[in-house]
């Protein structure tokens, strides 16, 4: 923002979706010194120092909470940094990001959690470090989860890897009950998935690409449900990709277990038939699965079995993607397309209500992380996203502000554009 930045903001006549209260209404919002000062119709500030946002016909939502993001900082700052990742976040309407610990070095110590927290002070959005469950993500030695939670870890995860040793996983679960933070689990039996490049099925067979069986995910979900049942741990299955996973989690929830899960927009959007292009931006982990799995994930969101939608934003350099399918790295960026991709599939095609979608990217992930976010309330710091649901855009490589451009959505037409993002009380993004 320029130096002549106006401190106060007036959002006029937007359609406000407030997931905390579960209602939708047209009103003005007045933000004074970064704090929401008033929510009511026809606010007259009488001052000229307020930036006026005409939100008539636009959706005004709490800023989104993306609970699964790779910021690559420290270690791979050529791919993304806390600063650029946060800018990409606010462009996507995201005002709170939980960043994963598979950096270099991994976020497995007090010092590294502090590093993230300190470096995030000036970032465009709030950043919550998720700390490793095991030292250097090796799946062996449990990290100092007690100290890490005191320092400010938002949860624990070995994301990118899965703890193969069931005893270690069981002890992590038992220990985590002392601190009440969620365990964010990447479910993959690495023996079943070894060498795999895409979902094992008709298309992997047709394309001669080594498959990753759904069993690789399902076996680990089944194990961890059993371990959680016994230990009482609060577990969160991240980037769920299989029909079998949805069914198991539905059952576990029915049984009253403390289990939640999220899905990515790319798993809701694509199926494995898209891989016939050998587009390396669609090489992700877990893999884009079959149409049957995709349908189950969509129903899972609609029925509320799947709590949250998270991007699994995974930046990679061009050199890691402009190569053969086998050599290409796994991952797609996703912060900037989070809402549009989910909205296009869930609301436009599947006719899910927009307020349900907003829940899954605001109040529900906030609840899982145990943070006070995803609401629009007087007296709170303003984190607000203004969306034009009618605006359609063809996603182009040039349009990304993330340091990396490896988006699976390049070339897709998506509806639902972020027009303004107010983050940490300031106008952090405005579309051109």
């Amino acid at each position, binding site marked *: 923002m320029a130096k002549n930045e106006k401190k106060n903001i007036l959002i006029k006549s937007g359609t406000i979706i407030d997931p905390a209260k579960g209602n939708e209404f047209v009103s003005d919002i007045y933000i004074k010194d970064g704090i929401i000062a008033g929510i009511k119709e026809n606010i007259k500030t009488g001052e000229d120092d307020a930036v006026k946002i005409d939100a008539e016909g636009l959706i005004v939502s709490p800023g989104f909470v993306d609970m699964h993001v790779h910021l690559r900082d420290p270690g791979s700052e050529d791919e993304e940094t806390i600063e650029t990742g946060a800018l990409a976040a606010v462009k996507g309407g995201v005002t709170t990001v939980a960043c994963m610990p598979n950096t270099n070095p991994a976020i497995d110590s007090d010092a590294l959690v502090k590093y993230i927290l300190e470096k995030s002070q000036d970032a465009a959005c709030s950043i919550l470090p998720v700390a490793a469950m095991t030292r250097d993500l090796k799946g062996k030695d449990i990290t100092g989860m007690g100290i890490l939670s005191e320092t400010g870890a938002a949860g624990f995860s070995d994301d990118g890897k899965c703890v193969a040793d069931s005893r270690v996983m069981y002890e992590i679960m038992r220990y985590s009950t002392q601190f009440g933070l969620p365990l964010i689990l990447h479910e993959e039996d690495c023996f079943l998935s*070894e*060498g795999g490049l895409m979902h*094992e*099925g*008709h298309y*992997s*067979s*047709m*394309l*001669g*690409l*080594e*498959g990753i*069986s759904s069993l690789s995910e399902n076996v680990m979900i089944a194990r961890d449900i059993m371990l959680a049942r016994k230990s009482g741990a609060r577990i969160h299955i991240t980037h769920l990709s299989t029909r079998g996973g949805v069914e198991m989690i539905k059952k576990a929830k029915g049984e009253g277990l403390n289990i939640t899960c999220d899905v990515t927009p790319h798993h809701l959007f694509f199926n494995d038939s898209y891989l016939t292009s*050998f587009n390396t931006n669609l090489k992700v982990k877990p893999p884009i699965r079959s149409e049957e799995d995709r349908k189950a994930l969509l129903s899972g969101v609609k029925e509320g079995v799947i709590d949250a939608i998270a991007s699994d934003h995974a930046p990679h350099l061009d*050199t*890691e993607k*402009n*190569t*053969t*399918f*086998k*050599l290409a790295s796994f991952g797609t960026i996703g912060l900037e397309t989070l809402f549009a991709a989910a909205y296009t599939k869930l609301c436009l095609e599947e006719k899910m209500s927009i307020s349900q979608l907003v829940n899954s990217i605001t109040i529900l992930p906030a609840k899982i992380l145990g943070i006070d976010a995803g609401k629009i309330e007087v007296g709170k710091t303003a984190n607000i996203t203004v969306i034009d649901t009618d605006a359609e855009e063809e996603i182009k490589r040039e349009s990304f502000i993330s340091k990396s451009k490896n988006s699976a959505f390049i070339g897709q037409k998506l509806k639902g554009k972020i027009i303004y993002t107010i983050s940490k009380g300031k106008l952090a993004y405005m579309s051109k």
Partner: protein
Amino acid sequence: MNMLSKKSIVDAGSLEPEDIELILSNADSFLEISRRDVKKVPTLRGKTVINLFFEPSTRTRTSFEIAAKRLSADIINFSSSSSSLKKGESIIDTLKTILSMNVDLIVIRHSDSGTVKMIDRFVDIPVINAGDGKYQHPTQALLDLYTIQKRFGKFEGLKVAIVGDFLDSRVARSDMDLFEKMGMEVTIVAPTMFLPEDYSEMNVRHNIDEVIKDTDILYILRMQLERQDRKFYPSVMEYNRFLTLDMKRLEEMKPGSVVMHPGPVNRGTEITDEVMDVGGTLGEKIAIEEQVTYGVAIRMAILYLILG
């Protein structure tokens, strides 16, 4: 002018029936040229073809080289092992170098599936897939088809059994696509570890004895049991019991039936020594050398149709 309906030959499945017919019918005249005393015609004089091989190959590379030379094209071999092209070193950069030298056609082999398709999207000149990873080997499928046509004079209704590691074979994928397109009945004979997780939609047997008496074409894949990434197949002994073509099985094959193999044969694994060296009427069943001869004619036909 390219007489085929597409710029390139990337996979067997997307070849149009009229393209296949055109290639096969042209192969006859090139077969005749290869049998002459002076085996050279000036058809492609002044054209430059690059044999871009990222994976070692002797047979296919030589076959393309002979085909191009008999048509008077200049053919240059450019070999680069895939392992030397690590992450960071771009194949695209290698291609830009080659394109700057104004070549007319690229023949590519690569160890990774889908690479030729990617390259074809990137370059404007025609590309011929000489085998990429586990994905496709369309010229092999075309020469196999030509061999079958020469032997049987028809395709419709012929019974083919493809025996061996279906999952890891680009030859099997390309053959299956073309054979089915031409109206042949294809059965895959393979153990579970060489099949996709769900093969319920495929016509599968696990034991060669279940198909041996009834099959017209026994298509045997190259087996390198010692070179499996992770060794799931138990042993050569186990393979011999259920899948190897031995004398007893060869004798059971019906009159007029043939044995094919993309080469080179691992003697003792998929075919026994005895079968490989058998003479007489039983020996006539083995069409492996014919495949190699026809391979040159097919590749001449393809080069001619694309560049002629």
